[in-house]
C-alpha cells in the first residue's frame, strides 16, 4: 500500500493523518534546525545530528531529505534533481514524497524554485540570493580516504592538520602525473575547514565559491550536516605547479541543445557503439 492510498483510507475511516506537516516530527525538525544554524555559522564544519529513519533507505538521500523537510514551508517551490536530471528515479520519488507530505508546488526551473534538492550536481544556472540548494551526501568526510578513524579526522579538522591529504595528492602526481580525484574533489572553506563537496564533478567546484545562494549538505547515513553560506570563499585544493582543473570535453557540443559550455554526459549506443553527448542538467538543456 502506498502513502496516498493509506491516507485516503484513513480519511475515509474518519481518522486524521498521523504525521505532521513535512512528515518528520517537530522535535526532530527542531534538532535539525538547531544543527543547520550551527553549520551555517561554521562554514565547512560537519555538525553531528540525530539522523532519523525515513521512508527511503539510508544512502538514497535521507540526509538531504531530512534537511529539505526541516526547511520546507507551504509557500516553497521545490525542484529535485538527480545527477542534473529532473526525471530520474531518485529525483522523481523524492519529489512525489515531499509533495505528498507538504502539498508544495513543484518545478523544473531553477529560477522559479525557492528550494532545490540535488544529488551530485549543481544546476548550470547560478542561484540567486534567498535560494537554498540541499545536497545529498554519501560520505561527508573528505579525509576518509586517508584516515579511517573518525576520532582522528576530528582531531585533524580541529588542528587544521591536512598534511595527509596534501601527501595523497602529491602521491597521485608522482604515480600518475595528475591528481586522480574525479568527483568529491576536496575544497577549503573560508580558508579553515577542508570539506567534501559531495560527489559533484570537478566542473561544479568553482560554482561553490562566493555564490549568492546558500548550500546545505546532509549526510543521513553518516549523520552530518554542513554548509557553505553565500559569499564564502571555497577553493579547490591545488599545488602551485599542479593547478586544479575542471573536466575537458574537447569542444564537444550537446547533441540536443548544441551548447559547448555545460557539463556533458556521454551516451553510448549499445547497438551501433556511437558516442553522443548531452547536457547533464536536463532543465537547462531544454531551456533554449
Amino acid at each position, binding site marked *: 500500500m502506498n502513502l496516498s492510498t493509506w491516507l485516503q483510507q484513513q480519511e475515509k475511516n474518519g481518522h486524521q493523518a498521523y504525521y505532521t506537516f*513535512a512528515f518528520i516530527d517537530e522535535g526532530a525538525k*527542531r534538532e535539525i534546525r*538547531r544543527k543547520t544554524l550551527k553549520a551555517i555559522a561554521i*562554514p565547512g564544519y560537519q555538525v553531528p545530528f540525530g539522523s532519523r529513519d525515513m521512508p527511503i533507505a539510508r544512502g538514497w538521500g535521507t540526509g538531504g531529505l531530512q534537511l529539505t523537510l526541516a526547511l520546507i*514551508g*507551504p509557500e516553497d517551490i521545490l525542484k529535485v534533481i538527480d545527477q542534473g536530471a529532473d526525471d530520474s528515479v531518485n529525483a522523481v520519488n523524492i519529489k512525489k514524497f515531499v509533495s505528498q507530505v507538504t502539498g508544495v508546488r513543484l518545478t523544473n526551473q531553477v529560477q522559479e524554485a525557492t528550494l532545490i534538492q540535488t544529488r551530485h550536481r549543481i544546476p548550470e544556472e547560478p542561484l540567486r540570493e534567498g535560494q537554498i540548494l540541499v545536497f545529498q551526501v554519501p560520505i561527508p568526510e573528505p579525509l576518509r580516504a586517508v584516515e579511517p578513524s573518525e576520532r582522528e579526522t576530528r582531531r585533524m579538522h580541529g588542528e587544521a592538520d591536512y598534511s595527509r591529504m596534501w601527501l595523497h595528492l602529491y602521491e597521485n602526481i608522482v604515480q600518475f602525473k595528475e591528481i586522480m580525484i574525479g568527483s568529491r574533489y576536496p575544497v577549503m572553506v573560508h580558508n*579553515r575547514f577542508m570539506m567534501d563537496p559531495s560527489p559533484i564533478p570537478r566542473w561544479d567546484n568553482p560554482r561553490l565559491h562566493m555564490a549568492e545562494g*546558500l548550500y546545505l549538505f546532509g549526510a543521513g547515513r553518516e549523520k552530518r550536516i554542513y554548509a557553505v553560506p*553565500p*559569499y564564502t570563499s571555497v577553493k579547490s585544493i591545488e599545488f602551485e605547479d599542479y593547478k586544479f582543473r575542471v573536466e575537458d570535453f574537447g569542444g564537444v557540443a550537446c547533441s540536443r541543445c548544441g551548447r559547448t559550455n555545460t557539463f556533458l554526459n556521454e551516451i553510448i549506443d549499445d547497438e551501433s557503439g556511437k558516442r553522443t553527448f548531452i547536457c547533464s542538467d536536463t532543465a537547462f538543456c531544454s531551456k533554449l
Partner: protein
Amino acid sequence: MHSSVYPTQKIFRVLVEATSHPGRGYRLPTCRESDPWRTSLLAVAYTLLDHEVAFAFIGKNIMLAQQVYAATKARQVAVEDAHYVIVEGNQSLGQLNNVNCGTSAYPDQGATIIYALSNDGREQQSPLTNVFLSGPGIKEPLNPQLTGLSIEELNNIHHLNGEYPLGIDCIFLNGDCQVMCIPRSTEIKIHQDKKWDMLP
C-alpha cells in the same frame, strides 16, 4: 497536517537567512507590534529550544525566563552549561566570560546567545556606523543594521570569537520585530577616531 507548525518553520527560515547574511536585519513573521520584545523572544525560543537543550538567563525579568521554560521545557542552568543564553537588553555585564565556546573537535558545542534588545530609550537608537562586519555571507563590509546594539558588547563578542572556530553565535532581537545574526565566522571591526583599528 497541523497549521500550528507553520510559524516555527517561517521563523526558522528567517533565522537561516539572517545567519546566512550576518549584519542584515530581517522582520520576524510572528512578532506582535503591541508586544514585540516578549513575542519575538518567545517565538525564537519556541523555534529552537526544547527539552533536549538548556538555557541560561541574564537579566532581571525572571518572569521571562519562566515563560521560556513554560513554552519550551528547556532546562534553566548556569551560563557555562547553557546551549542558549538569553540576555535581557544589550549588555551581558561580563557574565558571558564563562560561556561555552566549544572544543576544537566539536566547535558546534559553543553556545548561541539571544539578545532581547528592549528599545526603551536607554539604548543606541540608530545603527552603529563605526562598526563594520565582514566574512562569510557578507559581500561587502557593512554596518550592523539593527538598532539598540552596544559597542562594548560587540567588543566582548569579538574577544570570545578570537579563536575561530571556537566561539559563540549571536541572535539579536529588537523592539521593531527585527532579527539580526552575528555568527562566529563574522569579523567585527570598530572604527575609532577616524582611523581603522583592528581589535586586539
